[in-house]
């Protein structure tokens, strides 16, 4: 009763239940259990018993009724040889005259599309590109709907494998499709330049929008259109002998196509007897065995990592009869895809895990954060109650404790029970509490102190919280400035100046934050408020935990894989760093308290307290989670995996390679976010396609910014 008058935010009596006590006592075990349980549950999802077989939701696709008639294989070969001849003539560019002539010969409505990329990081650098597309006007439609078949053209000088066979196939398909009378949707054959950039520019121009930052990608304008796009398929075949088809589905920012579309492709391959894979992996032979589960789980994790990167994996490969069947099925569609799942994970080509199945494990993993925040809040209440008179209450031992428990937790039940028998006992209870309070040294001053300390604590916590976010935001928006400074004053290349800039910023933060805080905590206020020193640390910790949990769940609704990776990496550290009433003192708790929020930036602050093993481990744990360090570590591991022979020597060339991978990853992610509006750069992921390595890699950086822009 008294405590309510103190103006606390919640009723402190509320947390006195038996359950609460259990929670407070065993919260660390509970959190660990829920984390481990969540992870195990997720791994189990790859088992058939925990996922479901795929099925067609949209009946209108009529995949079984489509009879393929494609008979232009011979012309495809002719086209391929012509393309190869043309490619020799234009080693760096798309053979536009030939391509346009071919499309026009097929009597398609042929148009070209010019776009410009103003490189966001260097001053005044411009790249131009040109797409070519032909529209097959549907005889049975009024250009209200369209299907798109895209082929990225790669000139011989490109670092990627050639796509000439897919262009030949697309043209032969166009020739075949042209003669059919059943099309009800326009079919757009799009040949793009510059990989995903070309497609992005074309789509932006088609819809008259700009996804990235203004003025970075100038999408130009289109002179021919074909209604609203219902489905799109990207064709990438690297040789004229196709052994198998791999279906790639991950789009920008982890978006996935409707599961019906994916199923359709797999079903058509099955019908044609073509080997079809997901993530270049066949389905497990016997899914009930351990090997079968391992196989499915491996496939699942490959999808998780690709999706988490938020970078479209582009090359969506198919084959001619399959393509014909797929387009005929899509042509049957009456409504746009809406029936089946948009949120799913695939452990095999014919199994899926729906959002209802994969969210609970993540909830368990992230749930620990909420439990911990709750327990911290309860503890803070307890501290507030006990600290001013803690000596007293400790001296008195269990007696007061017991009485209070009677008074609080069982009060209501008791009152109800006692009503008929003994009404005085309730009054006794009140008296007892009054008595207890009267024993306090100075109730009035304590009250003031409490309010004051909470206000100070809140204010200070808010300030730290806000400044951490502001710094993150500043860093995010400083990319251009950093490169311009690096380029103009130091003559450094973009990647290098960006990387160095981020390293410097991170180091500054690592050093500055602890210094500010420690200097603040030496003073009695405001870092520590009055005599009671714990005030702002728990606030910050609770806020950070809550934010982390909320953001995890929010991200996972958008891009589950990213949320999962993030949860698995950050949750244990956030849980482990507990502001217990440990013997390491208040300062350590303070700093650890907001560590989950600001990530590793401030955690090394505890270095002046080295020597304590646990704290030391915690600090070391946080250090790699510093985004830039994480990036470097992942790059090192990646390079070591890709070039084991160099790793064996471990010399300078290996380090250079790893370093260039890291800096390229950073640069690409920044450019991606400018050009495509890929917010995962901001969230935490970046892709690296180091020119020398020609591969892909997923690295994590800037997680703190995630919360702001995500």
């Amino acid at each position, binding site marked *: 009763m008294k405590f309510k008058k103190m103006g606390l935010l919640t009723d402190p009596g509320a947390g006195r239940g038996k359950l609460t006590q259990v929670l407070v006592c065993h919260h660390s075990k509970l959190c660990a259990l829920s984390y481990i349980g969540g992870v195990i549950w997720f791994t189990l999802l790859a088992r058939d018993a925990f996922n479901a077989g795929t099925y067609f939701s949209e009946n209108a696709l009529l995949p079984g009724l489509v009879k393929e008639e494609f008979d232009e294989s011979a012309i495809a070969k002719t086209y391929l040889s012509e393309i190869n001849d043309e490619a020799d003539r234009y080693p760096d560019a798309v053979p536009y005259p030939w391509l346009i002539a071919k499309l026009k*010969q097929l*009597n398609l409505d042929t148009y070209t599309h010019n776009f410009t990329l103003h490189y966001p990081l260097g001053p005044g650098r411009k790249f131009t590109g040109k797409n070519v597309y032909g529209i097959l006007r549907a*005889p049975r439609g*009024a250009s209200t709907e369209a299907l798109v078949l895209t082929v990225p053209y790669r000139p011989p000088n490109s670092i990627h494998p050639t796509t000439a066979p897919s262009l030949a196939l697309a043209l032969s398909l166009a020739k075949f499709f*042209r*003669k059919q009378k059943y099309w009800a949707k326009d079919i757009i054959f799009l040949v793009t330049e510059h990989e995903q950039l070309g497609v992005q520019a074309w789509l932006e121009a088609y819809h*008259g929008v700009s996804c990235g930052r203004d003025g970075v990608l100038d999408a130009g304008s289109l002179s021919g259109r074909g209604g609203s796009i219902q489905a799109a398929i990207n064709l990438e075949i690297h040789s004229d002998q196709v052994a198998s088809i791999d279906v790639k589905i991950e789009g920008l920012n982890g978006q996935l196509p409707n599961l019906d579309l994916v199923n359709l492709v797999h079903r058509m391959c099955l019908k044609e007897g073509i080997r079809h894979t997901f993530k270049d992996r066949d389905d497990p032979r016997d899914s009930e065995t351990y090997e079968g589960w391992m196989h499915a789980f491996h496939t699942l994790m490959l999808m998780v990592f690709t999706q988490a990167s938020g970078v479209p994996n582009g090359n969506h490969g198919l084959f001619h009869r399959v393509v014909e069947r797929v387009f005929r099925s899509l042509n049957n569609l*009456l409504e*746009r895809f*809406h029936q089946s799942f948009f949120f799913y994970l695939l452990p095999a080509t014919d199994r899926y895990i729906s959002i209802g199945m994969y969210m609970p494990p993540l909830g368990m993993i992230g749930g620990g954060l909420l439990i911990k925040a709750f327990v911290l809040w309860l503890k803070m209440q307890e501290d507030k109650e006990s600290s001013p008179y803690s000596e007293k209450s400790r001296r008195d031992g269990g007696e007061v404790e017991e009485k209070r428990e009677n008074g609080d937790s069982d009060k209501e039940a008791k009152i109800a029970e006692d009503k008929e028998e003994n009404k005085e006992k309730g009054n006794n209870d009140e008296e007892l509490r009054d008595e207890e309070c009267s024993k306090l040294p100075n109730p009035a001053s304590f009250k003031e102190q409490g309010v004051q300390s909470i206000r100070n604590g809140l204010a200070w916590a808010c300030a730290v919280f806000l400044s951490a976010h502001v710094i993150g935001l500043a860093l995010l928006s400083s990319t251009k400035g950093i490169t311009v400074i690096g380029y103009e004053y130091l003559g450094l290349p973009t990647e290098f100046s960006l990387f160095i800039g981020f390293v410097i910023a991170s180091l500054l933060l690592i050093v500055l934050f602890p210094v500010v805080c420690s200097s603040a905590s030496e003073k009695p206020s405001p870092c520590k408020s009055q005599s009671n020193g714990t005030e702002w640390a728990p606030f910050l910790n609770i806020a950070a935990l809550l934010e982390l949990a909320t953001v995890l769940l929010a991200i996972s609704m958008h891009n589950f894989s990213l949320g999962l990776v993030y949860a698995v990496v950050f949750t244990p550290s956030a849980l482990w760093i507990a502001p217990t009433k440990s013997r390491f003192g208040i300062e350590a708790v303070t700093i650890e308290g907001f560590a989950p929020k600001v990530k590793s930036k401030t955690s090394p602050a505890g270095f002046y307290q080295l020597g304590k093993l646990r704290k030391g481990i915690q600090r070391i744990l946080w250090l790699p989670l510093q985004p830039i360090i994480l990036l470097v570590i992942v790059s090192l591991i990646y390079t070591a995996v890709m070039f084991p022979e160099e790793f064996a020597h471990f010399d300078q060339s290996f380090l250079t390679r790893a370093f260039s991978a890291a800096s390229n990853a950073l640069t690409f992610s920044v450019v991606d976010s400018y050009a495509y509006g890929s917010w995962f750069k901001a969230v935490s992921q970046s892709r690296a396609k180091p020119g020398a390595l020609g591969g892909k890699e997923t690295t994590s950086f800037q997680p703190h910014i995630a919360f702001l822009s995500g």
Partner: protein
Amino acid sequence: MRPTSAFYVVYLFVNCLKFGFSEFNKDRFHEELLIKPLLGGRIYSYFQFTTIWDEEFKSESFHHCHLFPRALGEVVARHNVRELHISLTQGTWRHEKWGYPVVDAPPGAELWVWFKDDTKDVDSEWKHLTGALSGLLCASLNFIGGSNSLSPEMSFTPSGRVEDYGNGKLNSSYLKYATLPREVVCTENLTPWKKLLPCDTKIGLSTLLNAGYIYNTNYLSLGIHLKPICRDEECSTSSIELKQTVSLVYDTAIVGNGCQNWSLRSLFGRGLEGHCPLASSSMIYVDISQNTSSFAFRLDPPPDNIITTLRGGQIGQLAAYDISQMPSYPLFNLAAHHIPPSCVNLGVNIPPPLFHASRYIIGYGQERGGIVTRVYNNHRQELEVLYFENIPWFLPVYMHSLHITSNGKSIEPLKKRYKPGVERKRPYYLEILLKLPPRSVTEISFNFDYIFLKWQEYPPDANHGFYVGSAVLTTYLPYARNYTASPMDGSLIASSFNNGSKHGYIVQLRTEVLLVSLPTPDFSMPYNVICLACTVVALAFGPLHNITTKRLMLTNIQKRGALDWIRSKFWWKAKVKSD
């Protein structure tokens, strides 16, 4: 007795014949077919069946019909119609590639009607007229009502003879315009349409209209156009003109045997048996203006007669066939054989028309969007263009966002008419008169919101999307390039051959229709919820009701004899009585 009655019957019959012959003199019927090769191996064939009836456009006139379809006449007379235009279309006309058709029509159904000035309640006449026409043509025209009809002020002036309007101004409240962009045109519309013809499909050019073949086209448009015309030069008296039209665009890649060759048999599935005996003229014209050395084809049989046309500075050539002179056996088959080089050629090289337009939706997501219309003026002079937009009520439009830019510069409209729509009552109406700069691309754009409808307003295939009808652009072209439309003062195709006009050539073109995906609720969810809820209620209701309404009481169980039982019955009755 017997001979007298026989005589009476004969007398009556002769009288009828006499009456009939007198009617013969008053109306004439013409059947014509124009075939024109288009760019990209497409063949445009246009049928026109014209009935001209020298009778005043009055309700009483339609009491006795001869060649004029009585079914239509009754509807027109009853609803006080002055002028009527219906089109039912599948596919969209591509002006950029194909030039201008004789009669332009938007995808779906379009209906515009001028009512007579003495019509009392235009709205109710309109409603009833659409209902009647819906029955007449088996089309969903009955879905036309106040919520999708407009009375545009400028774009749709009467195309026929205009009687004196009191103050010399048109009162557009007597005009009703509506489109149904979603209407699917099929055989069920063709059959009743054909029944309006004097010869039905028994004989004549209309026998070529086989549903099995003409629905394999890229574009199909049925039309009925009824208007009063001047009977003579002075225009003191009027006649009634009914044009029934069919526009078809074939793709030789689909229907032909390659090489862009075509014949009546490949296009329509059969040859021509003969002409309609009721027709005053039966003609087939083939446009051979493009039959040059680079794109050469040979007509078989060779034409009776080659007509050289001169219209608006354009010289053209037409091969004419008079069907009425053909023997009915063997079937007449007209074929075009391409001479080899043109087999691999791209087809006729038609320069792009002076004026065309395209329209599309911008934006993504389901919150905000925009509609952009790009109008191309390829002429070296300015063009005055009338732009008419008809936006359904479920697409709330922001007029402040209306921007008209031409080659990057914003231009001001000369005239602007705007009437905001009202949800579920009235569509948004916008009409703009613009001056297009020479050789320019003008963009007319405005923004709209996506809104939620009431759940019952969604069609069964809600996720298909909702259609927005065509915009209509009207202008006068100085040249008749790519132009085939009939002149204002002529009824037949033949009358357009050497008919220059100093006022220019009116072109009215319709843009593409748009498909908008409005935010759609998950309709399977309520279904699941209802199923689940019903099951739960069914299972839970019984026990719950049982538990909550029954009271457990201790009773003494006594052995009761028959007498007790009877007494209890009586006691109960007694209690009821006492109540």
